[in-house]
């Protein structure tokens, strides 16, 4: 039990260190290097409404709209989930293809070695 607690603590500490590094990277303008300042398409891309910058009242109103309007499951978004699964399937298929090609070349090389030995 103590071992599991200790391991969990190590994982959380590592995550904390990584988070600290990411925070430093972002605070010291790391995101500007990859063009974050010009981005406006995030909300549309993720299907979210952008956070309003004009005070607490509008933020509260925005939060209310978010809770009421987006509380339940949307079946229109289901196609998005299928697309994400499809992307993972494509990546898997590509990696399997690469693995097969690599193993094919590996098998071709082996007989040459056995002839030499």
């Amino acid at each position: 039990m103590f071992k599991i607690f200790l391991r969990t603590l190590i994982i959380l500490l590592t995550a904390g260190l990584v988070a600290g590094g990411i925070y430093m990277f972002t605070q010291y303008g790391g995101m500007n290097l990859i063009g974050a300042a010009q981005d406006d398409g995030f909300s549309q891309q993720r299907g979210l409404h952008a956070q309003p910058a004009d005070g607490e009242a509008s933020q509260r109103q925005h939060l209310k709209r978010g809770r009421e309007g987006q509380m339940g499951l949307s079946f229109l978004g289901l196609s998005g989930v299928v697309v994400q699964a499809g992307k993972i399937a494509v990546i898997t298929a590509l990696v399997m293809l690469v693995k097969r090609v690599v193993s094919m070349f590996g098998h071709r090389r082996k007989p040459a070695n056995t002839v030499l030995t």
Partner: protein
Amino acid sequence: MNKTNILLDAGILIAFLIAMEPRFSGISIHEWLSVALAATIVIHLLLHWKWIIEIGAHFFQKLWHASRLKFVVDSLLFIDFVAVMMSGILISRVVLPTLGLSITGTDREWRMLHSLSADAALLLVGLHFALNWDWVVCMVKRMVITPIVGLIQPKPAMQLVPIRNDENICKIGE
């Protein structure tokens, strides 16, 4: 152990796919599901602790290339998940207010980081899944296909077959 792993991994994959599409789940499910996902990933890491330590200790020594590649992909995935969770918490609209916390002045940079790291997570999860494909296939055969085939095909009356243990084990992290 393998059964626990495959069930947990299937749950993580489904939760990840749902969390990746806030338009499907809605913002509150998206945020709470992601918090649950973070906790489940810690359990996933605990279940694979032995493999992480073994490969980590021998990373710069003679090691089979596939294991080293898996270790690199998994490390990148861990860093990326931390970035997704951290930026997600900083731009949170449901979880933080529910806990009575608020972060003012969060800006576009965190949103952009959340978006970029989420896209990278999809790629890395795909790679992680592909690199463990053999284990997934083995487990699906053992847990789904073999029992179904066993139900359909009638059992032979009596058969003595030598047992080969290595056939029944789906090795993880190879």
